């Protein structure tokens, strides 16, 4: 009897402990509820949360005290690929990647827990955006277009499934999106005339659940290929829709073989994550001939637009235009350039730019703004609800584009060359598209993404190796640190043991920044109840 009573007491205590403090169960697991409503001590997916706003509620680091921000630790990968991934932070462990490699790092000490590496000769090694996590498993896309599932505790491989045929010209770089029991991945590959698609995998078995094709089957007459799904999308759980950007058509610089709008290339699409069926689509660049993917983050914002509450989707797109859509219908609310553009005749009644045929690539060249890299690219933007500013790392630029019969109608089918560009952080008023402030970040441009915090800080980097903390209201620099190589990733922040950390990367090194310990004595904790 006594033994039984003790057992009951023990069991009851265990239950109480589990029920009262979910964080006590430290198992490096990640449930759907934790992805849906991330706690301040986590960054559980590529965007930080499903909205893609990259706006943190943490307020320990403020415009007033950020000048005391200092190095907590640095982690050196000691290899040569630049870090372009957004790290995940789950249960005190950071997970980040470069092509062929994943590291798990103790977020307190900055030391390595495990390192996965698999030499993978096939596929382009241009970069990697990060891993995804679900329950106790990581999901990693490889250069040779496979989805690998690994045990988050030790980096051992559970299974590897083919996403696409690397020998046909596909490769993969993106961080998968976990929605309920779906692991959703996209593909890359512009040098062949290939079909773009999204594919959903079962998180346990790796079996394919559904596939959505962005373009008609290869070989369809007078029709485009392409529409690669390069980057991670966003998700609205109430509408139960994922929002994804698609890439440019192929052949890239020559449009004769693919007349018309070339759906759904250079588009923002809304897809049901359970079925893979299209709900709506909006083309940022109908009949594109400049390689301007529309794969930049489709940021989800619920706010007033011109006096009316709206569920919006915002994208600062590669082609130079800032788009605001109603995400329930896909209808355009605003289309305005956010830098120099010279390739469109105007905007049509659907809010889509009208491409000027005279600015398509020609044998003797055409001067085009922006350049092929675009007015922005993979680096993540951020939306700050307090100021209503959509903040993006922009690249005002000019280039020359050529295409002639000898270039053929396969793959690139032409040549483009950048002439000049510079980097600026632009703060766009989302209701008008007007740029409220602009902060120079160097000739040539910067590869850094943006993070904003509720305390009024904007964290980013310039093109010369400086990490910058700006005042979100004005763009004024409040703090900086020289890290040696330009940031090529997007910063994250989280709270651990009552201390707020900001993580940035430079070259092959990860940096953790925090206020000094003694600055926290008697001070505020990182997360404010609200």
């Amino acid at each position, binding site marked *: 009897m006594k033994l039984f009573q003790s057992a009951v007491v023990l069991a009851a205590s265990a239950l109480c402990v589990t029920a009262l403090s979910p964080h006590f169960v430290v198992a490096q697991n990640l449930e759907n509820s934790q992805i849906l409503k991330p706690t301040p001590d986590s960054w559980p997916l590529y965007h930080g949360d499903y909205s893609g706003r990259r706006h943190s509620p943490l307020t320990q680091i403020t415009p007033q005290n950020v000048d005391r921000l200092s190095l907590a630790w640095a982690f050196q990968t000691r*290899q*040569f690929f*630049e870090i372009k991934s957004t790290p995940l932070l789950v249960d005190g462990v950071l997970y980040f990647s470069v092509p062929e490699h994943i590291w798990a790092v103790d977020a307190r000490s900055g030391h390595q827990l495990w390192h996965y590496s698999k030499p993978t*000769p*096939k*596929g*382009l*090694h*241009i970069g990697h955006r990060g891993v995804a996590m679900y329950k106790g498993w990581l999901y990693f896309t490889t*250069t040779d277009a496979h989805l690998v599932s690994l045990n988050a505790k030790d980096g051992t491989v559970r299974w590897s499934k083919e996403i696409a045929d690397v020998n046909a010209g596909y490769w993969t770089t993106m961080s998968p999106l976990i929605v309920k029991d779906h692991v959703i991945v996209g593909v890359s590959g512009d*040098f062949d005339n290939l079909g773009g698609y999204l594919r959903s995998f079962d998180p346990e078995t790796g079996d394919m659940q559904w596939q959505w094709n962005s373009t008609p089957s290869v070989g369809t007459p007078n029709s485009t290929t392409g529409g690669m799904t390069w980057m991670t999308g966003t998700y609205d759980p109430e509408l139960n829709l994922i929002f994804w950007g698609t890439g440019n058509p192929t052949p890239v610089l020559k449009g004769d073989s693919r007349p018309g709008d070339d759906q759904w290339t250079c588009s923002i699409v809304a897809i049901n994550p359970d079925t893979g069926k299209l709900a709506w689509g909006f083309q940022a660049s109908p009949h594109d001939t400049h*390689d301007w993917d529309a794969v930049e983050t489709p940021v989800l914002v619920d706010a007033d637009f011109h006096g009316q509450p709206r569920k919006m989707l915002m994208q600062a797109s590669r082609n130079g235009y800032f788009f605001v859509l109603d995400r329930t219908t896909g209808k355009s609310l605003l289309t305005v350039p956010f830098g*120099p553009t*010279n390739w469109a005749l105007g905007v049509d009644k659907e809010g889509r730019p009208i491409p000027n045929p*005279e600015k398509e690539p020609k*044998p*003797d*060249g*055409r*001067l085009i*703004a922006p350049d*092929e*890299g675009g007015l922005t690219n993979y680096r993540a933007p951020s939306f700050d609800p307090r100021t209503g500013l959509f903040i993006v790392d922009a690249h005002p630029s*000019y280039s*020359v584009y*050529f295409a*002639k019969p*000898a*270039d*053929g109608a396969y*793959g*690139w089918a*032409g*040549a*483009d*060359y*950048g*002439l*000049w*560009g510079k980097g600026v952080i632009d703060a766009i008023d989302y209701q008008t598209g007007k740029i409220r402030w602009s902060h*120079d970040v*160097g000739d*040539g441009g910067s590869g850094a993404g943006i993070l904003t915090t509720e305390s009024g800080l904007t964290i980013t980097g*310039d093109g*010369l190796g*400086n990490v*910058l903390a700006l005042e979100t209201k004005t763009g004024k*620099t409040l703090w*900086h640190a020289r890290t040696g190589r330009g940031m090529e990733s997007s910063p994250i922040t989280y709270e651990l043991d009552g201390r707020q950390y900001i993580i940035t990367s430079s070259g092959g090194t990860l940096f953790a920044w925090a206020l000094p310990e003694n600055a926290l004595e008697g001070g505020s904790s990182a997360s404010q109840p609200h």
Partner: protein
Amino acid sequence: MKSLSFMPRFLIVVSCAAFAGVLILASRQPSVHAAGQAPAPTPVQAGAGLFQQDCAFCHGRDAMGGETGPDLTRSKLVLSDTDGSKIAEVVRNGRLNTEKKMPPFHVSDAEMVSLVEFIRARVTAAAAMKGGRRGVDVADLQTGNVELGKQYFNGAGGCSKCHSPTGDLAGVASRHQGLSLERRMLYPEGAKSKVTVTLASGETVTGTLAYLDEFTVGLRDSNNTYRSWFIDKVKKYVVDSPVEAHVEQFPKYTDADIHNLMAYIQTLK
């Protein structure tokens, strides 16, 4: 010694013939390999694989460029590189001071040899294409009018404010041709700026701008000595960047202006 009887002799002859046959067949393969294994790649094949991994994204799968990166098959550096050392230097150090910031790559000596072999093979293949060669030929850039170009140079283009056909631009078309000339015409990468720094003391220092970010300004003085200052410790600094006029011209050009200007510039041999 007793000579071999017929049967063993026959077997020896047949064996030798078979063995010789195997040797002849084997020598036709790039390398002898054990059954079941793929043949070891030639340097060009190995270089092709490495090129696809790290270089193709910008320089194209065929090294003929135009996807952000230059056409290596027309590159002066590549064409003048007799021992692969020039290519190696660029691959290992990158080109971080250019618009597109080519990063450095970590390549072993053996890998570098194969990479250079592949690039050279592409140069040869591209040259054989003649009229069917993709990319930008000098012949593609002849659609302008010389007289209109000269008028633009001296008029709306504003070029004659800083440039002279008999002065700094004399012979420019002998030094550069085709796409290379057009790109320099539109924006000369590497053009130097001057900077004058006024120190807290009131003393001014002038030199060629060598470094500038939000926090630090650096110059090389007339003795080529490098000097730098924290920007918040000096009174002010003023940059004189004549090349900015090229940037200001970008929104003003029509494509016809550019082709006409190119026609005129190409006469300055």
